[in-house]
């Protein structure tokens, strides 16, 4: 019994973090119809900044700086790289982000090397015990922060002018332009928000039980892409549901891994992609999506 509860709690916590990352994919897709394959290397950059800064300016300062710097970096990618490739269609631009991803990943893995960098978080490996259920403090922090940030994002998306402009542009870019929406700003804003969300997610991906940030962190974060796709790449609700589904699936597979020794214990790595494939076979646009991501 306690196993199931722990699996659900852990799954929900990591699912909330995947939802943060998936939301980044969705925001950029909605604003620009581009799938940002550089998203996880931006996440790695955010985590790396927190790792190198926390000794000097403290944990909270490092997180703020990391989030802000990653938002700026993402905006720069949009302004300096994507805006210049205006000739290509959305598919071309998505491929351009693969190039950006490679450049960022190469530079970051060169800096990180084979090290595992701690992020200096205050929770360490402390746990909370409720009955016979044991939950790491980091999981609780991850869940609480992710829920708060997602709620703030959804409120802004629903009620602010920024949100109205984003949704108008997502629905019909030309008509939004006719209303005086500045599509360039919408796009840059989406990249900034996605970058900030990614940096925050990086933090929670690198704390207990994970030993710290290493060069494979971006690979682990990439599981949020199937989360976004299975939820529907143009749906914020889909990102949240997809994130939680992937989180719980992964936790369940890890929890019962010994019982089902599939793929030599590596089943947890492919479970998200398997789940995505199954969902897409039934619903090509994802659970809540209106468009297939392959549409050009």
């Amino acid at each position: 019994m306690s196993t199931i509860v722990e699996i659900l709690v852990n799954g929900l916590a990591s699912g909330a973090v995947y939802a943060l990352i998936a939301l980044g994919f969705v925001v950029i897709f909605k604003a620009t119809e581009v799938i940002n394959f550089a998203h996880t290397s931006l996440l790695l950059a955010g985590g790396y900044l927190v790792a190198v800064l926390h000794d000097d300016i403290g944990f909270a300062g490092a997180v703020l700086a990391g989030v802000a710097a990653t938002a700026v970096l993402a905006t720069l990618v949009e302004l300096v790289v994507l805006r210049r490739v205006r000739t290509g269609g959305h598919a071309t631009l998505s491929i351009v982000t693969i190039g950006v991803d490679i450049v960022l990943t190469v530079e970051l893995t060169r800096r990180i090397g084979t090290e595992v960098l701690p992020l200096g978080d205050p929770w360490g490996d402390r746990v909370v015990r409720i009955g016979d259920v044991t939950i790491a403090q980091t999981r609780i922090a991850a869940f609480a922060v992710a829920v708060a940030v997602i709620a703030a994002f959804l409120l802004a998306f629903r009620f602010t002018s920024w949100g109205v402009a984003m949704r108008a542009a997502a629905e019909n870019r030309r008509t939004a332009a006719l209303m005086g929406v500045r599509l360039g700003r919408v796009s840059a804003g989406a990249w900034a928000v996605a970058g900030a969300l990614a940096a925050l997610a990086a933090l929670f991906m690198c704390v207990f039980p994970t030993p710290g940030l290493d060069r494979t962190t971006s690979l682990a974060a990439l599981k949020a892409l199937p989360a976004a796709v299975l939820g529907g790449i143009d749906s914020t609700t889909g990102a949240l549901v997809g994130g939680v589904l992937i989180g719980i699936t992964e936790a369940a597979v890890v929890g019962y891994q010994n019982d089902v020794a599939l793929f030599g214990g590596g089943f947890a790595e492919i479970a998200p992609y398997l789940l995505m494939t199954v969902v897409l076979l039934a619903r090509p646009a994802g659970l809540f999506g209106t468009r297939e991501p392959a549409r050009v």
Partner: protein
Amino acid sequence: MRVRHGPGAAALSVSGLTVDYGPVRALREVSLEVPEGGFVAVLGGNGAGKSTLLRAVSGVLGFHGGTVRAGDITAGGRSLRGLRPDQIVAAGVVQVPEGREVFARMTVGENLRAGALGVRRDRRRTAATRARVLELFPVLAERDRQKAGLLSGGEQQMLAIGRALMAEPRLLLLDEPSLGLAPIMVERIAETIAAINRQGTAVLLIEQNAALALELAAHAYVLEVGRVALSGPSTELAASEEIRRRYLGSAGADDDEPADVPERTLTRWAG
């Protein structure tokens, strides 16, 4: 804040406008003028280039793969050519696109809000504009929280016009607002457009419904295969044999003339 402009400057002046979509020439040296506070109509059949004209004015040709090859477009004496769509909206020139194009997944209230995105105004002024729009279209107030995609065609057209009015345009561009609407709804929309014009907003109305357009507008242009084939005061055009035969469907003449009519001007008012 209204853009200041010299006395006598037209709300819109288009001169020698030539537009291509790749190898396809859609407009050839089109010139026309909408006086400050005036009401001008552009008539023409399918593919005449009417929507292309409005796309060029609003600066959104790029979305359709079109480019302005030659000519100039000015509003209140200020050139719009090369401006971004948002700058053109900020200059007071706002379009209601063909087919309405309301944001279907957003509520009626949010659509109106989207219409005000192009002009930075304080809350009180935006609220006042909104109140005026809702006075013009009371049905929109009733449907405030409803998704725009669920409105009827006529209600969507009202929303599209209301949304454009949220930007407090000096010149309103309307692309076939009567398209696909029942006669009674066409009449309602026509009355509203006339009222908007009476309140001081200049109107450029694109229509295939020539009878309606000539009734509303003071002056009209006829586009044929990308050229201005005819222009003049509405009363003169409505009386002209050619217009009656081609666009008003009056009996008496049944010979089919070729489309390429040389430009004729019925007045000294030619632009």
